[in-house]
């Protein structure tokens, strides 16, 4: 499970208040505390460095512009992730509408999945196992891209970001139960699609 990013609670409250008062140094520290996990979330969801970079910039610009509207009703992490997940969901929905496959590019060597060129935690081993792993990875990517944006988002936050369903519900403006149902559906779909591998 990925450790939850951020700074210690007392420090964070002081930093947010300082940033709200116009202290840019404090704002910079807030950015640095969370930006790696924001970029990882966007990158894993969108599988495109350019799109992830756009989400990163837009998210932190929105945080900067709206920081004075943050009233400590929820954690800063939750507030920031609401912004990030809304931006990512919009992007995922646009892709669904356009039926784009943004991770696929055509090169002189044929059509490649750009995600295959990204750094992944690969399991190296004997050739047979590598072949199996490669097929499984491709299948998993297919299945993930076939989920609805909300299912994809909940699965991403639970599995890769290690967030609790209660927190995910809070971020997405829904109940823990609804988030759980969404994760359940995502798992059902994936297990059905990956049946030959498991």
């Amino acid at each position: 499970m990925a450790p939850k990013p951020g700074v210690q609670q007392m420090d964070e409250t002081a930093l947010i208040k300082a940033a709200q008062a116009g202290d840019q140094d404090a704002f910079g520290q807030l950015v640095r505390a969370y930006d790696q996990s924001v970029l990882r979330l966007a990158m894993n969801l969108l599988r495109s460095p350019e799109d992830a970079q756009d989400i990163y910039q837009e998210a932190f610009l929105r945080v900067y512009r709206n920081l004075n509207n943050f009233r400590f009703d929820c954690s800063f992490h939750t507030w920031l992730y609401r912004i990030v997940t809304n931006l990512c969901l919009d992007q995922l929905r646009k892709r669904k509408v356009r039926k784009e496959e943004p991770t696929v590019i055509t090169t002189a060597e044929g059509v490649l999945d750009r995600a295959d060129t990204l750094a992944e935690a690969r399991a190296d081993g004997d050739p047979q196992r590598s072949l199996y792993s490669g097929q499984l990875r491709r299948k998993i990517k297919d299945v993930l891209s076939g989920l609805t944006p909300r299912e994809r988002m909940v699965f991403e936050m639970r599995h890769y970001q290690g967030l609790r369903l209660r927190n995910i519900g809070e971020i997405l403006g829904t109940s823990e139960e609804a988030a759980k149902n969404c994760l359940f559906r995502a798992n059902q779909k994936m297990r059905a699609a990956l049946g030959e591998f498991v």
Partner: protein
Amino acid sequence: MNGELDQNCVATREQLPMLLYGELSFDEEETVESHLDDCAACRSALERERELSTAFDQVAVEPSRALLQACREDLAARLALEPAPSGAAHIEKETVHTWWDKFIELVTMPTAMMRPAGALALLAIGFIGARVTPGVLPGFGGDSWSQASLANLGTSRVRSVEPAADGTLHIVLDETRQRTIDGAIDDAEVRSLLLAATKDPVDGLRGEIVALLTKQAQALDVRNALVYTIRNDQNAGVRLKALDGLQAFIGEDEVRGALTDVLAADGNPAMRIRAVDLLVQGLSQQNQQQAQVVDRRMIGVLQELMNRQEENPYMRERCQRALELVKASAELF
């Protein structure tokens, strides 16, 4: 249990992913665990579920450090153009770059360089690079740096630099044997070591040394080292620090030329914005006599940016202002 999927097995298997996520209630977990104790088939299913979960981990993408760095630099450049957030009791800027400086330093310097606020700057650099050898560096003429005698040091590497409470520096060298040198920053030997270490492969060490040298930019050899850094250093954070040290010397041809090079060719938007800001600042402060010296190359680059390349509205406004200050047209002829 005979392994067939009865109603309990179906219910249990649906819960397995949530069991692995630790998202079952106490009662739900109790029911599942109880069934697993009695059902070998469901225990096998749990193992497959674990394997699947591990397989999901293998498609996780970790953004590269370079991408994160690029994001931080782009954000810093973008925020520099943003007005203060509405409602903020905005802290007065000491200079036009004060908060920008801090932000750039904060987001672009390597993590190893991050220090608690107010703490004394202490270097904790892992290993070293800059081989201290006598000689002339590219971009440096027959100045005092290149002529400084380092023969008595042999082949050495600066391992770390620590400012001491009395204002002197404590430098640790890697040689055949390690030794330390203590001295003030204006001491010739200390200065030579610092200048040579501006080419160290470790970003953090270069950044710290360049930051120290910016306070000594009245010395020609230091200015030359800073000019070399802004033209050649691979790390934008280090280049930005070097720019800081030169802002009081924009009237000098070499410095203005380097800023012009940055404007024309530096790939980092924050560097270009800072360069044009410094040019405008320097041109605003120059006296009548200096104003009569026409820097045709700088004017050409500014006009080129205005006419062909520059899409950033802030950059265009600054370029236009710089051209006005030298009484040049924004048009290319």
